[in-house]
C-alpha cells in the first residue's frame, strides 16, 4: 500500500499585504503570512519551543534577509501551539530603500515576499535526483499605493509558466485609480504527485524555476507624471 500524497493546496503559504510606497523608496504597511499543512508543521517545529521574544526575533530575522533592516512592529503569532489551526503572523513593516531609482524613475518589485531570493537551482549540472518532500502552493495578494506625482511607465506582467500538472505559476496585476497596484501571484507544485525528478529532467527543472525566478524579479516602473 502506498500512503496518499497531500495536494499542493493542503500545504499553502499565503502572503497578504497592503503597502504604501514613498518617493524616497520606503515601503510601509501591514502584512499577514499564513502557513498550512506541512509548511505549518515546519514553522510550528521551529517556533513552539521559542519564547514570545524569540518568536518576534524569528520573523524579524526572516524579514531582515529580504529587506535589509526593516522596522517590524505589532507582531502577532497565531496557531503555533494549536496543531489544528494554520500558523500565521501579522505585523506592520517599514522597509527603507526598497526600490531601485534612477533620475526620473522608480522601479518596484511587486513580488515583495520573493525579493532577494537566490535562484533555487544555480548550477547547470546535477548528480542526484531532485526531491521535493511534498506538494505545496503559494498565494500572494499585494497592494502597493505609489507616491503622489508618479505614474506607471509601460507596465506589463511576466508570462505565466506551466509545466504539465507539476508546476503552475501565474501573476495578475491591475492598477486601481492610477495610484494603486494590485498584484496577485499564484504558484503550485506537485499536484500530479511528481515529487522526485530524475537527473535527466534537471535541465528542465532548472529552466522552469529560473523562469519563475525571473518572473518574481519583475519590476514595475514609475515615472514622474507630466503636469497637465
Amino acid at each position, binding site marked *: 500500500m502506498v500512503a496518499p500524497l497531500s495536494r499542493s493546496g493542503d500545504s499553502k503559504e499565503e502572503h497578504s499585504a497592503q503597502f504604501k510606497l514613498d518617493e524616497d523608496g520606503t515601503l510601509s504597511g501591514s502584512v499577514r503570512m499564513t502557513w498550512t499543512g506541512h509548511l505549518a508543521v515546519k514553522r510550528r517545529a521551529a517556533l513552539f*519551543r*521559542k*519564547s514570545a*521574544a*524569540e518568536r518576534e*526575533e524569528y520573523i524579524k530575522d526572516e524579514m*531582515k534577509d529580504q529587506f*535589509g*533592516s526593516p522596522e517590524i512592529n505589532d507582531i502577532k503569532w497565531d496557531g503555533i501551539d494549536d496543531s489544528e489551526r494554520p500558523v500565521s503572523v501579522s505585523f506592520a513593516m517599514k522597509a527603507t*530603500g526598497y526600490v*531601485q*531609482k*534612477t*533620475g*526620473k*524613475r522608480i*522601479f518596484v518589485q511587486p513580488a515583495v515576499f520573493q525579493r532577494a531570493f*537566490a*535562484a533555487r537551482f*544555480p*548550477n*547547470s549540472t546535477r548528480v542526484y535526483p531532485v526531491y521535493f518532500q511534498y506538494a505545496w502552493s503559494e498565494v500572494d495578494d499585494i497592494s502597493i499605493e505609489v507616491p503622489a506625482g508618479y505614474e506607471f*511607465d*509601460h*507596465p*506589463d506582467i511576466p508570462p505565466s509558466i506551466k509545466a504539465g500538472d507539476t508546476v503552475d505559476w501565474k501573476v495578475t496585476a491591475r492598477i486601481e485609480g492610477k495610484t494603486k497596484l494590485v498584484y496577485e501571484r499564484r504558484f503550485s507544485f506537485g499536484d500530479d504527485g511528481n515529487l522526485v525528478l530524475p537527473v535527466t529532467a534537471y535541465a528542465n527543472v532548472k529552466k522552469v524555476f*529560473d*523562469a519563475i*525566478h*525571473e518572473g518574481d*524579479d*519583475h*519590476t514595475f*516602473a514609475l515615472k514622474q507624471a507630466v503636469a497637465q
Partner: protein
Amino acid sequence: MKEFLSNTDRRKSLSHLSFQRSAVLALLSLILCCVPAAAAEEAPAWLRAAASEKLPAADPKAPAIVLLRESNVVVEDSGHIVTTDRFAVKVVNRAGASAARAAKIYLRDTGKVRDLKAWVIAPSGDARRLTKERFLDVAVGEDALYEDIRARVVSAERDCDPGAVFGYESVTEEKSIFTQLDWDFSDRLPAHISRYSLTLPAGWSAKAVTMNHAPVSPVESGATQTWELRDLPYFEGEPFSPAFESLRPRLALSFFPAGSQKTVLGPSFARWEDVSLWLSELHDGQSLPDDAITAKVRSLTAGANTPIDKIRALADYVQAIRYVSIQTGIGRGGGYKPHAASLVFAKSYGDCKDKANLLRAMLKAAGIESWPVSIFSGDPLFVRAEWPTPQQVNHCILAILAPAGYTGDAVLDDPKLGKLLIFDPTDAYTPLGEIPLHEQNSFALIIAGERGGLEKMPSGKAGANSTMRNIEASVAPNGSVKGTLHEDLTGWTAVIQRASFRERGEAEYRKRVETRVTNGIRSAAIGNVKTIDTPHEDRFQVDAEFTSAGFAQIMQGRLMVFRPSILQSFDPLPFTDTKRTQPAILNARTWQDTVHVKLPEGFEVDELPDAAKVETAYGSYEAKSSAEAGLLTFTRTLVLKSSVVPADEYAKLKAFADRVSGSDQAPVVLVKK
C-alpha cells in the same frame, strides 16, 4: 594550529559554558540521558542561595542566566594549586538547557579532578543530586592526534526545563609550571555574580590586570584577595565583531614566591623579554640542522639565485609538510617546546612549532637567520600587551631576517632585529610575503632571547587585498546577455579562493563560481571556467563565460532595464541592524569592477545611474557610468581601510554601507529608438 595552547587555555576551552567542545558534549548528552536521572538529595545551601537571588532584568534573548560563577584558588607552599569552583545557571528557555553542564579539564601527568558534584533544582523547587553514573572521564582532543588532556564531565541538559537551576561544585588540583592564572568573568550568558579568589602562601605577592573592563580592585581578607563583578551582560554575536573571547572581562594574574623560595612552579614573567628568554631556551636547541637537513637545503636552493628565492624554496617545502600534532608532557611545558628539527625533517610531519622550527633550521643551514614567533591564531585583538605571559598565545610562526632591499606587506621593522619577513609555515595557502588575515595586526612575541619582545604584526594594505573584475558583455534586443568575466585577486582574497579551490576540487569550485554568477545574473549559464593560481605572484585568477536569456527586463517592448554592474554587488557590508553594541572590524580591501556592455541594436540610453562618490574614515566608494557609440562603460570601486570601528560610531558606518548598497542597485534604462 591549536596544539600550542597553554595549560590555562586548555582549561579555559572546556570550562563552564565554553561551547568549543560542543560536539563532545552533545555526544555526552546522548550517552548520559540514558542513565538513571538522579539521587534524591538536597541541594547545598550555596546553590539554594544562588537560586533565590533576585535578578535584575536580563536581555530577553538570553537563553539562560548565570547566577553564580565562582572560583577559589589556593596556591600552596609546594606550588600545588587547588581550585574550588562553584557554578549555578538558571535555564530560561529550552535552548538554554545546554548551559546545564560541567567539564573540568585536567592534564593527566600534572593534575586531577578531586571532586565534582552537580545538582538540578526543578522549577517546582525539588532538588536532586546527579548520581555518579552521570559523570564521565573523557579524552579531549581537538586538532591533535594525541593529547594528554582529559576532562571530567557531566551534563544535565535533558533534566532542565525552563525555570530549572543547574549547579556544580568541583575541586581540581594541578602542578602548573606557571606562576600565572587567568579568569574569565563571563561567557556569552549574562552573569549575576562572578567572583574569583586567590589565596597565596604567606609572603607571596600577586599582580592583577583587568582586561576588557575598568580595573577591578580586590577585596583582601588575610592571605586571600577576591575580585568580583556583578550583572554582566549577555553577549550576542554581531557581524564583523571581534571574537567574544576578546570582549569579555578577564582577570590576568601573575604571582611571585617570597624571596628566593623554591617551588615546583616555573619562572615569573614581569616583562615580555622574560617570556622570550624562557621560550628561547625551549626552542633554540631544537633548531640545529643536521647533515640530512643541510643536504636537503642545498638541493632545494640549488636553482635559487637570490636570498629571497632561497627563502621561498625552503618556505614552500616546509609549508607542504603534513600537519600532525602529538602533545605530551603539556603540564611540564611540552606544549611550548618543538620537536628537534632533525626528527621533524625525518618524519616529515609536525605541528605549528615543529614546522616553524624546521624552517628555522633549514634557513640556518642556508645562512639565513630567523626567530620563532608566538601568536594567537583566531582574533588579532586577543593578545594584550599588559600581561607578559606565554599563556595568551596558541600558535607559532616564523620571523625571517629579510634580505636587504626586500619590502612588502609581511615585513616588520623590529628595532632590535632589523627587517623581519613574517611567515606562517602551517598555513598551506598563504604564500611567503603574505600574513594570514587572522594574524595581521595582532600582538605577537618574537622569541629571540633578550632581544625578543612583543610586536604588532603588520597588516595588509587595501590595494594588496584586491578583487578586480572585468566584464565584457553584449545585450541583445530580446534582453539576453552573453559575456566574459575575468577576476584577478590578490592578498588574502586570493588566499580564500585558493583554499576553496584546493579543498573543494575543480568541479565543486566551478559550481561556486556558477552560483556567484547566477546570483547576479538571473538564469545564467556559465562555461569555460578557468583558474590560474600563482601563489608566488600572490594572485588567483578566474575566467568564465556566461549567457542568460532573461538578463534584462523588457517593458511592453519599449523599455529595457538592467543593472550595469551585471554581477551581484560587492560582498555586502553586513550592517543592516539599526544599532550595535560591539565594535566592527574592517579588514583592508579593494574591490573594483570595470564593465563594458555592448548595447542592443535599436535601443538608446534613456537613463544612466547617477554617479556616486563617498569618502569616509572607513573607506571610499565611487561609481560612474557613461555610454558612447553603443557601448556602456560602468566602473565602481570600494576601498575599505583596516580599522576597528567603535560601536558608538556605528551610525556613520551604517550610513556608508547604505550608500554603497543603494548605489549598487541603480539600473540602466534603455528606450527603443
